[in-house]
Protein backbone atom coordinates (compact mmCIF):
# COMPACT_ATOMS: atom_id res chain seq x y z
CA UNK A 1 0.00 0.00 0.00
CA UNK A 2 1.08 3.56 -0.66
CA UNK A 3 0.17 5.90 2.14
CA UNK A 4 0.52 9.66 2.42
CA UNK A 5 0.00 11.49 5.67
CA UNK A 6 -0.28 15.27 6.03
CA UNK A 7 1.76 15.84 2.90
CA UNK A 8 2.31 19.46 1.98
CA UNK A 9 4.07 20.78 -1.09
CA UNK A 10 4.72 24.41 -1.88
CA UNK A 11 6.10 25.99 -5.04
CA UNK A 12 7.40 29.40 -3.99
CA UNK A 13 4.48 30.90 -2.11
CA UNK A 14 1.87 28.68 -3.72
CA UNK A 15 0.82 25.69 -1.60
CA UNK A 16 -0.13 23.07 -4.14
CA UNK A 17 -0.73 20.12 -1.80
CA UNK A 18 -2.35 20.93 1.51
CA UNK A 19 -1.89 18.29 4.20
CA UNK A 20 -2.91 15.44 1.95
CA UNK A 21 -3.70 12.19 3.74
CA UNK A 22 -4.76 9.24 1.66
CA UNK A 23 -3.78 5.77 0.58
CA UNK A 24 -3.58 3.78 -2.61
CA UNK A 25 -4.51 0.15 -2.27
CA UNK A 26 -2.73 -2.84 -3.70
CA UNK A 27 -4.22 -4.50 -6.75
CA UNK A 28 -6.62 -1.67 -7.24
CA UNK A 29 -6.93 1.12 -9.72
CA UNK A 30 -7.16 4.52 -8.14
CA UNK A 31 -8.18 7.34 -10.46
CA UNK A 32 -7.31 10.94 -9.64
CA UNK A 33 -9.65 13.53 -11.05
CA UNK A 34 -10.03 17.24 -10.49
CA UNK A 35 -9.79 20.59 -12.22
CA UNK A 36 -6.59 21.69 -13.96
CA UNK A 37 -4.00 23.03 -11.55
CA UNK A 38 -5.60 21.31 -8.56
CA UNK A 39 -2.38 19.40 -7.79
CA UNK A 40 -3.01 15.96 -9.35
CA UNK A 41 0.33 15.77 -11.14
CA UNK A 42 2.20 17.05 -8.14
CA UNK A 43 0.57 14.42 -5.96
CA UNK A 44 1.34 11.63 -8.43
CA UNK A 45 4.93 12.79 -8.94
CA UNK A 46 5.44 12.93 -5.18
CA UNK A 47 4.71 9.21 -5.05
CA UNK A 48 7.72 8.63 -7.33
CA UNK A 49 9.77 11.35 -5.58
CA UNK A 50 10.02 13.36 -8.78
CA UNK A 51 8.58 16.10 -6.57
CA UNK A 52 9.76 16.45 -3.02
CA UNK A 53 7.08 17.70 -0.61
CA UNK A 54 8.50 19.64 2.31
CA UNK A 55 6.52 17.96 5.04
CA UNK A 56 4.44 14.91 5.78
CA UNK A 57 5.01 11.18 5.80
CA UNK A 58 5.09 8.67 2.99
CA UNK A 59 4.89 4.94 3.46
CA UNK A 60 5.78 3.39 0.13
CA UNK A 61 4.90 -0.25 0.56
CA UNK A 62 7.01 -0.50 3.69
CA UNK A 63 9.60 2.16 2.93
CA UNK A 64 8.84 4.86 5.47
CA UNK A 65 9.88 8.39 4.66
CA UNK A 66 9.58 11.65 6.54
CA UNK A 67 9.54 14.44 3.97
CA UNK A 68 10.79 16.92 6.55
CA UNK A 69 14.03 14.94 6.82
CA UNK A 70 16.69 14.16 4.28
CA UNK A 71 15.80 11.30 2.00
CA UNK A 72 18.81 9.20 1.07
CA UNK A 73 19.67 8.17 -2.48
CA UNK A 74 19.12 4.59 -1.46
CA UNK A 75 15.61 5.29 -0.24
CA UNK A 76 14.85 7.24 -3.39
CA UNK A 77 15.97 4.36 -5.58
CA UNK A 78 13.99 1.89 -3.48
CA UNK A 79 10.83 3.95 -3.91
CA UNK A 80 11.46 4.20 -7.64
CA UNK A 81 11.72 0.44 -7.91
CA UNK A 82 8.32 0.03 -6.32
CA UNK A 83 6.69 2.70 -8.43
CA UNK A 84 6.97 3.42 -12.12
CA UNK A 85 5.86 6.54 -13.89
CA UNK A 86 4.13 6.89 -17.25
CA UNK A 87 4.12 10.45 -18.58
CA UNK A 88 1.66 12.36 -20.72
CA UNK A 89 4.25 12.88 -23.46
CA UNK A 90 5.73 9.38 -23.16
CA UNK A 91 9.35 10.48 -22.64
CA UNK A 92 10.75 7.50 -24.50
CA UNK A 93 14.49 7.62 -25.09
CA UNK A 94 14.72 8.73 -28.73
CA UNK A 95 18.24 7.41 -29.33
CA UNK A 96 17.32 3.84 -28.36
CA UNK A 97 15.16 1.38 -30.24
CA UNK A 98 11.84 0.37 -28.76
CA UNK A 99 13.38 -2.89 -27.51
CA UNK A 100 16.34 -1.09 -25.92
CA UNK A 101 13.99 1.44 -24.32
CA UNK A 102 12.29 -1.41 -22.51
CA UNK A 103 15.53 -3.24 -21.65
CA UNK A 104 17.34 -0.16 -20.35
CA UNK A 105 15.97 -0.31 -16.80
CA UNK A 106 16.09 -4.09 -16.29
CA UNK A 107 19.66 -4.34 -17.60
CA UNK A 108 21.21 -1.22 -16.11
CA UNK A 109 19.17 -0.70 -12.95
CA UNK A 110 18.01 -4.18 -11.97
CA UNK A 111 21.20 -5.72 -13.46
CA UNK A 112 19.30 -8.53 -15.15
CA UNK A 113 21.18 -10.40 -17.82
CA UNK A 114 20.58 -9.22 -21.34
CA UNK A 115 19.12 -12.41 -22.73
CA UNK A 116 16.34 -12.74 -20.20
CA UNK A 117 15.69 -8.97 -20.23
CA UNK A 118 15.30 -9.15 -24.00
CA UNK A 119 12.98 -12.12 -23.79
CA UNK A 120 10.79 -10.35 -21.29
CA UNK A 121 10.87 -7.09 -23.28
CA UNK A 122 9.57 -8.95 -26.31
CA UNK A 123 6.82 -10.56 -24.24
CA UNK A 124 5.78 -7.15 -22.96
CA UNK A 125 5.79 -5.72 -26.47
CA UNK A 126 3.57 -8.56 -27.49
CA UNK A 127 1.29 -7.79 -24.58
CA UNK A 128 0.84 -4.19 -25.72
CA UNK A 129 0.42 -5.34 -29.30
CA UNK A 130 3.68 -4.00 -30.72
CA UNK A 131 5.92 -6.99 -31.26
CA UNK A 132 6.72 -5.89 -34.81
CA UNK A 133 8.02 -2.51 -33.57
CA UNK A 134 10.91 -3.89 -31.51
CA UNK A 135 13.56 -2.43 -33.80
CA UNK A 136 11.82 0.85 -34.55
CA UNK A 137 12.93 4.14 -33.00
CA UNK A 138 10.42 6.14 -30.93
CA UNK A 139 10.16 8.84 -33.61
CA UNK A 140 8.80 6.23 -35.97
CA UNK A 141 5.81 5.48 -33.74
CA UNK A 142 2.38 7.03 -33.51
CA UNK A 143 1.47 8.61 -30.19
CA UNK A 144 -0.64 5.63 -29.19
CA UNK A 145 2.17 3.22 -30.01
CA UNK A 146 4.69 5.35 -28.13
CA UNK A 147 2.52 5.40 -25.04
CA UNK A 148 2.06 1.63 -25.17
CA UNK A 149 5.84 1.25 -25.37
CA UNK A 150 6.13 3.55 -22.36
CA UNK A 151 3.71 1.30 -20.49
CA UNK A 152 5.74 -1.76 -21.48
CA UNK A 153 8.89 0.04 -20.31
CA UNK A 154 7.34 0.63 -16.91
CA UNK A 155 6.09 -2.96 -16.66
CA UNK A 156 9.59 -4.25 -17.41
CA UNK A 157 10.69 -2.91 -14.03
CA UNK A 158 8.14 -5.16 -12.32
CA UNK A 159 6.83 -2.30 -10.21
CA UNK A 160 4.25 -2.77 -7.49
CA UNK A 161 2.52 0.42 -8.61
CA UNK A 162 2.32 2.14 -11.96
CA UNK A 163 1.61 5.86 -11.83
CA UNK A 164 0.14 7.37 -14.99
CA UNK A 165 -0.18 11.12 -15.51
CA UNK A 166 -2.83 11.82 -18.14
CA UNK A 167 -1.50 9.01 -20.31
CA UNK A 168 -3.88 9.69 -23.18
CA UNK A 169 -4.31 13.47 -23.13
CA UNK A 170 -1.97 13.95 -26.07
CA UNK A 171 -3.72 11.37 -28.22
CA UNK A 172 -6.44 11.40 -30.85
CA UNK A 173 -9.55 9.48 -29.78
CA UNK A 174 -8.86 6.34 -31.83
CA UNK A 175 -5.28 6.18 -30.58
CA UNK A 176 -6.48 6.87 -27.06
CA UNK A 177 -8.59 3.76 -27.26
CA UNK A 178 -5.56 1.50 -27.98
CA UNK A 179 -3.91 2.76 -24.83
CA UNK A 180 -7.03 2.57 -22.68
CA UNK A 181 -7.52 -1.06 -23.71
CA UNK A 182 -4.02 -1.92 -22.50
CA UNK A 183 -4.70 -0.16 -19.20
CA UNK A 184 -8.02 -1.92 -18.73
CA UNK A 185 -6.24 -5.21 -19.34
CA UNK A 186 -3.66 -4.36 -16.66
CA UNK A 187 -6.38 -3.36 -14.23
CA UNK A 188 -8.10 -6.68 -14.86
CA UNK A 189 -4.83 -8.48 -14.06
CA UNK A 190 -4.84 -6.67 -10.71
CA UNK A 191 -1.79 -4.59 -11.41
CA UNK A 192 -1.92 -1.68 -8.93
CA UNK A 193 -2.49 1.52 -10.89
CA UNK A 194 -2.80 5.19 -10.04
CA UNK A 195 -4.13 7.15 -12.99
CA UNK A 196 -4.68 10.86 -13.47
CA UNK A 197 -7.23 11.38 -16.22
CA UNK A 198 -9.81 13.79 -17.53
CA UNK A 199 -11.64 10.95 -19.23
CA UNK A 200 -14.49 10.25 -16.83
CA UNK A 201 -15.92 7.53 -19.02
CA UNK A 202 -12.63 5.69 -18.78
CA UNK A 203 -12.56 6.34 -15.04
CA UNK A 204 -16.01 4.84 -14.79
CA UNK A 205 -14.73 1.69 -16.48
CA UNK A 206 -11.39 1.22 -14.86
CA UNK A 207 -11.50 2.73 -11.37
CA UNK A 208 -11.93 0.90 -8.14
CA UNK A 209 -11.45 4.07 -6.19
CA UNK A 210 -11.75 7.73 -7.11
CA UNK A 211 -9.88 10.63 -5.56
CA UNK A 212 -11.37 14.00 -6.41
CA UNK A 213 -8.81 16.70 -5.80
CA UNK A 214 -9.54 20.36 -5.67
CA UNK A 215 -7.26 23.22 -4.75
CA UNK A 216 -4.62 20.93 -3.25
CA UNK A 217 -7.05 19.08 -1.02
CA UNK A 218 -8.87 15.81 -1.32
CA UNK A 219 -12.49 16.72 -1.73
CA UNK A 220 -13.69 13.16 -2.14
CA UNK A 221 -12.14 9.74 -1.74
CA UNK A 222 -14.19 6.63 -2.15
CA UNK A 223 -15.59 3.89 -4.32
CA UNK A 224 -16.24 4.65 -7.95
CA UNK A 225 -20.00 4.24 -7.65
CA UNK A 226 -20.22 6.55 -4.67
CA UNK A 227 -18.50 9.19 -6.77
CA UNK A 228 -20.60 8.88 -9.88
CA UNK A 229 -23.83 8.57 -7.90
CA UNK A 230 -22.91 11.31 -5.48
CA UNK A 231 -25.52 13.90 -4.69
CA UNK A 232 -22.89 16.39 -3.64
CA UNK A 233 -23.41 19.54 -5.70
CA UNK A 234 -19.72 20.17 -6.33
CA UNK A 235 -19.10 16.63 -7.56
CA UNK A 236 -22.18 16.72 -9.78
CA UNK A 237 -21.09 20.05 -11.18
CA UNK A 238 -17.61 18.66 -11.91
CA UNK A 239 -18.92 15.53 -13.62
CA UNK A 240 -21.31 17.63 -15.62
CA UNK A 241 -18.61 20.08 -16.70
CA UNK A 242 -16.25 17.28 -17.73
CA UNK A 243 -18.93 15.64 -19.82
CA UNK A 244 -19.75 18.92 -21.53
CA UNK A 245 -16.04 19.47 -22.11
CA UNK A 246 -15.87 16.14 -23.82
CA UNK A 247 -18.77 17.03 -26.05
CA UNK A 248 -17.25 20.33 -27.11
CA UNK A 249 -13.88 18.65 -27.72
CA UNK A 250 -15.44 16.36 -30.24
CA UNK A 251 -16.73 19.18 -32.38
Amino acid sequence: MLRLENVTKTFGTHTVLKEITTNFNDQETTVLVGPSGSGKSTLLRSLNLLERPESGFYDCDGIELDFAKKITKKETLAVRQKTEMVFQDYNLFPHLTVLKNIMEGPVHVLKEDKTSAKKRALELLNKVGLKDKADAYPNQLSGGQAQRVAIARSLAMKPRYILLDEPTSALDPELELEVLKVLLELAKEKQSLVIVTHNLEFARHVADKILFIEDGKIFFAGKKDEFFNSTNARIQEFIHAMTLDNLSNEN
Partner: protein
Amino acid sequence: MWHIVWSSLPELISAGIKYTIPLAVISFALGLVLALITALIRISQTKGPFLIIKAIFRFYVWLFRSTPLIVQLFIVYFGLPYLIIKGVAPDGIKLEPFTAGIIVFSLNTGAYASETIRAAIESIPKGQWEAAQAIGMTRTQTLFRIIIPQAARVSLPPLSNSFIGLVKDTSLASTITIVEMFEVSQQIAAENYQPLVMYCTVAALYAILCTILSFVQSWLEKITTRYLKPQV
Protein backbone atom coordinates in the same frame (compact mmCIF):
# COMPACT_ATOMS: atom_id res chain seq x y z
CA MET B 1 54.11 29.03 -61.95
CA TRP B 2 52.82 25.49 -61.62
CA HIS B 3 56.28 24.07 -61.21
CA ILE B 4 56.80 26.37 -58.21
CA VAL B 5 53.64 24.97 -56.74
CA TRP B 6 54.57 21.37 -57.50
CA SER B 7 58.09 21.69 -56.18
CA SER B 8 56.93 23.21 -52.90
CA LEU B 9 54.19 20.68 -52.30
CA PRO B 10 56.30 17.87 -50.78
CA GLU B 11 57.71 20.18 -48.12
CA LEU B 12 54.35 21.73 -47.37
CA ILE B 13 52.54 18.42 -47.16
CA SER B 14 55.20 16.90 -44.99
CA ALA B 15 54.93 19.88 -42.60
CA GLY B 16 51.18 19.34 -42.60
CA ILE B 17 51.57 15.69 -41.70
CA LYS B 18 54.27 16.29 -39.12
CA TYR B 19 52.83 19.33 -37.36
CA THR B 20 49.53 20.78 -38.60
CA ILE B 21 47.48 17.59 -38.42
CA PRO B 22 48.99 16.24 -35.17
CA LEU B 23 48.59 19.64 -33.49
CA ALA B 24 44.96 19.81 -34.53
CA VAL B 25 44.07 16.20 -33.78
CA ILE B 26 45.84 15.87 -30.43
CA SER B 27 44.66 19.27 -29.21
CA PHE B 28 41.10 18.56 -30.26
CA ALA B 29 41.06 15.17 -28.53
CA LEU B 30 42.50 16.59 -25.31
CA GLY B 31 40.28 19.65 -25.64
CA LEU B 32 37.17 17.52 -25.94
CA VAL B 33 37.99 15.54 -22.80
CA LEU B 34 38.64 18.78 -20.97
CA ALA B 35 35.44 20.26 -22.38
CA LEU B 36 33.33 17.33 -21.21
CA ILE B 37 34.84 17.46 -17.73
CA THR B 38 34.33 21.23 -17.60
CA ALA B 39 30.74 20.98 -18.80
CA LEU B 40 29.90 18.24 -16.29
CA ILE B 41 31.43 20.19 -13.43
CA ARG B 42 29.59 23.32 -14.44
CA ILE B 43 26.19 21.63 -14.58
CA SER B 44 26.76 19.57 -11.43
CA GLN B 45 24.44 20.24 -8.53
CA THR B 46 26.92 19.60 -5.76
CA LYS B 47 27.24 22.35 -3.20
CA GLY B 48 29.75 23.23 -0.47
CA PRO B 49 33.50 23.13 -1.13
CA PHE B 50 32.83 21.87 -4.62
CA LEU B 51 31.61 25.35 -5.51
CA ILE B 52 35.23 26.50 -5.51
CA ILE B 53 36.11 23.94 -8.18
CA LYS B 54 33.10 25.11 -10.15
CA ALA B 55 34.29 28.70 -9.87
CA ILE B 56 37.79 27.72 -11.04
CA PHE B 57 36.39 26.08 -14.15
CA ARG B 58 34.15 29.05 -14.83
CA PHE B 59 37.19 31.30 -14.55
CA TYR B 60 39.13 29.06 -16.95
CA VAL B 61 36.39 29.22 -19.59
CA TRP B 62 36.09 32.97 -19.20
CA LEU B 63 39.87 33.47 -19.43
CA PHE B 64 40.39 31.51 -22.63
CA ARG B 65 37.33 32.90 -24.33
CA SER B 66 38.21 36.49 -23.60
CA THR B 67 41.85 36.59 -24.69
CA PRO B 68 43.30 36.18 -28.21
CA LEU B 69 44.71 32.79 -29.08
CA ILE B 70 47.98 34.27 -30.29
CA VAL B 71 48.47 36.08 -27.00
CA GLN B 72 47.85 32.81 -25.13
CA LEU B 73 50.52 31.14 -27.29
CA PHE B 74 52.98 33.95 -26.57
CA ILE B 75 52.36 33.83 -22.83
CA VAL B 76 52.89 30.08 -22.60
CA TYR B 77 55.87 29.84 -24.94
CA PHE B 78 57.69 33.17 -24.50
CA GLY B 79 56.31 34.25 -21.14
CA LEU B 80 56.42 31.19 -18.91
CA PRO B 81 60.26 30.87 -19.05
CA TYR B 82 60.22 34.01 -16.90
CA LEU B 83 57.86 32.51 -14.35
CA ILE B 84 60.20 31.48 -11.58
CA ILE B 85 58.70 29.43 -8.80
CA LYS B 86 61.06 28.56 -5.94
CA GLY B 87 61.42 24.81 -5.52
CA VAL B 88 59.16 23.93 -8.43
CA ALA B 89 60.60 25.81 -11.37
CA PRO B 90 63.67 27.76 -10.24
CA ASP B 91 64.74 28.44 -13.85
CA GLY B 92 61.30 29.31 -15.19
CA ILE B 93 58.97 27.06 -17.17
CA LYS B 94 60.54 26.29 -20.53
CA LEU B 95 58.39 24.25 -22.88
CA GLU B 96 59.11 22.70 -26.24
CA PRO B 97 57.26 24.68 -28.94
CA PHE B 98 55.12 21.67 -29.85
CA THR B 99 54.20 21.04 -26.20
CA ALA B 100 53.35 24.70 -25.69
CA GLY B 101 51.20 24.57 -28.82
CA ILE B 102 49.33 21.47 -27.69
CA ILE B 103 48.71 22.98 -24.24
CA VAL B 104 47.34 26.24 -25.56
CA PHE B 105 45.26 24.77 -28.37
CA SER B 106 43.79 22.13 -26.03
CA LEU B 107 42.90 24.65 -23.34
CA ASN B 108 41.42 27.00 -25.92
CA THR B 109 39.38 24.28 -27.59
CA GLY B 110 38.29 22.97 -24.18
CA ALA B 111 36.96 26.37 -23.15
CA TYR B 112 34.85 26.88 -26.26
CA ALA B 113 33.73 23.26 -26.62
CA SER B 114 32.68 23.09 -22.96
CA GLU B 115 30.13 25.79 -23.65
CA THR B 116 28.90 23.89 -26.70
CA ILE B 117 28.56 20.67 -24.71
CA ARG B 118 26.93 22.40 -21.77
CA ALA B 119 24.36 24.01 -24.04
CA ALA B 120 23.72 20.67 -25.74
CA ILE B 121 23.20 18.90 -22.41
CA GLU B 122 20.87 21.65 -21.26
CA SER B 123 18.89 21.40 -24.50
CA ILE B 124 17.79 17.83 -23.73
CA PRO B 125 14.21 18.00 -22.41
CA LYS B 126 13.62 17.67 -18.68
CA GLY B 127 11.32 14.72 -19.42
CA GLN B 128 14.34 12.63 -20.41
CA TRP B 129 15.87 13.13 -16.97
CA GLU B 130 12.58 12.33 -15.30
CA ALA B 131 11.96 9.20 -17.35
CA ALA B 132 15.45 7.90 -16.55
CA GLN B 133 15.10 8.72 -12.87
CA ALA B 134 11.66 7.15 -12.75
CA ILE B 135 13.12 3.82 -13.83
CA GLY B 136 15.62 4.18 -10.99
CA MET B 137 18.73 5.43 -12.78
CA THR B 138 21.19 7.49 -10.79
CA ARG B 139 22.17 10.94 -11.98
CA THR B 140 25.45 9.62 -13.34
CA GLN B 141 23.77 6.76 -15.19
CA THR B 142 21.22 9.17 -16.61
CA LEU B 143 23.96 11.49 -17.82
CA PHE B 144 26.08 8.87 -19.50
CA ARG B 145 23.38 6.58 -20.86
CA ILE B 146 20.55 8.95 -21.72
CA ILE B 147 21.60 12.59 -21.82
CA ILE B 148 25.12 12.61 -23.26
CA PRO B 149 24.33 10.33 -26.22
CA GLN B 150 21.57 12.73 -27.23
CA ALA B 151 23.68 15.79 -26.46
CA ALA B 152 26.49 14.39 -28.60
CA ARG B 153 24.26 14.48 -31.62
CA VAL B 154 23.17 18.04 -30.86
CA SER B 155 26.74 19.21 -30.39
CA LEU B 156 28.20 17.45 -33.42
CA PRO B 157 27.77 20.34 -35.90
CA PRO B 158 29.17 23.06 -33.62
CA LEU B 159 32.01 20.79 -32.50
CA SER B 160 32.88 20.01 -36.11
CA ASN B 161 33.04 23.73 -36.74
CA SER B 162 35.38 24.11 -33.79
CA PHE B 163 37.63 21.39 -35.18
CA ILE B 164 37.73 22.99 -38.61
CA GLY B 165 38.50 26.32 -36.93
CA LEU B 166 41.28 24.68 -34.97
CA VAL B 167 42.90 23.25 -38.11
CA LYS B 168 43.17 26.77 -39.48
CA ASP B 169 44.25 28.25 -36.15
CA THR B 170 47.24 25.91 -35.97
CA SER B 171 48.82 28.29 -38.50
CA LEU B 172 49.37 30.60 -35.52
CA ALA B 173 51.80 28.00 -34.20
CA SER B 174 54.29 29.43 -36.69
CA THR B 175 54.67 32.37 -34.30
CA ILE B 176 56.11 30.09 -31.63
CA THR B 177 58.65 28.55 -34.03
CA ILE B 178 56.70 25.42 -34.95
CA VAL B 179 57.44 24.60 -38.57
CA GLU B 180 53.90 23.72 -39.57
CA MET B 181 52.52 24.32 -43.07
CA PHE B 182 52.17 28.07 -42.94
CA GLU B 183 55.66 28.51 -41.49
CA VAL B 184 57.11 26.37 -44.31
CA SER B 185 55.26 28.41 -46.91
CA GLN B 186 56.76 31.58 -45.43
CA GLN B 187 60.25 30.08 -45.53
CA ILE B 188 59.88 29.02 -49.17
CA ALA B 189 58.45 32.41 -50.13
CA ALA B 190 61.47 34.10 -48.54
CA GLU B 191 63.71 32.02 -50.77
CA ASN B 192 61.88 32.12 -54.09
CA TYR B 193 60.27 35.58 -53.79
CA GLN B 194 56.88 34.17 -54.80
CA PRO B 195 54.72 35.12 -51.81
CA LEU B 196 51.50 35.21 -53.80
CA VAL B 197 51.94 31.72 -55.23
CA MET B 198 53.19 30.26 -51.96
CA TYR B 199 50.46 31.69 -49.75
CA CYS B 200 47.78 30.71 -52.27
CA THR B 201 49.21 27.20 -52.36
CA VAL B 202 49.13 26.86 -48.61
CA ALA B 203 45.64 28.36 -48.52
CA ALA B 204 44.53 25.69 -50.97
CA LEU B 205 46.00 22.98 -48.76
CA TYR B 206 44.08 24.26 -45.73
CA ALA B 207 40.94 24.45 -47.85
CA ILE B 208 41.33 20.86 -49.02
CA LEU B 209 41.87 19.64 -45.47
CA CYS B 210 38.83 21.52 -44.19
CA THR B 211 36.67 20.34 -47.06
CA ILE B 212 37.52 16.73 -46.28
CA LEU B 213 36.54 17.41 -42.68
CA SER B 214 33.23 18.90 -43.78
CA PHE B 215 32.48 15.71 -45.67
CA VAL B 216 33.29 13.64 -42.61
CA GLN B 217 31.01 15.93 -40.63
CA SER B 218 28.04 15.44 -42.99
CA TRP B 219 28.58 11.71 -42.93
CA LEU B 220 28.65 11.65 -39.12
CA GLU B 221 25.55 13.82 -38.95
CA LYS B 222 23.77 11.46 -41.26
CA ILE B 223 24.49 8.37 -39.18
CA THR B 224 23.84 10.05 -35.84
CA THR B 225 20.47 11.47 -36.86
CA ARG B 226 19.17 8.24 -38.35
CA TYR B 227 16.98 7.63 -35.33
CA LEU B 228 15.22 10.95 -35.77
CA LYS B 229 13.77 10.10 -39.17
CA PRO B 230 10.14 9.08 -39.15
CA GLN B 231 9.42 5.89 -41.03
CA VAL B 232 7.96 6.32 -44.51
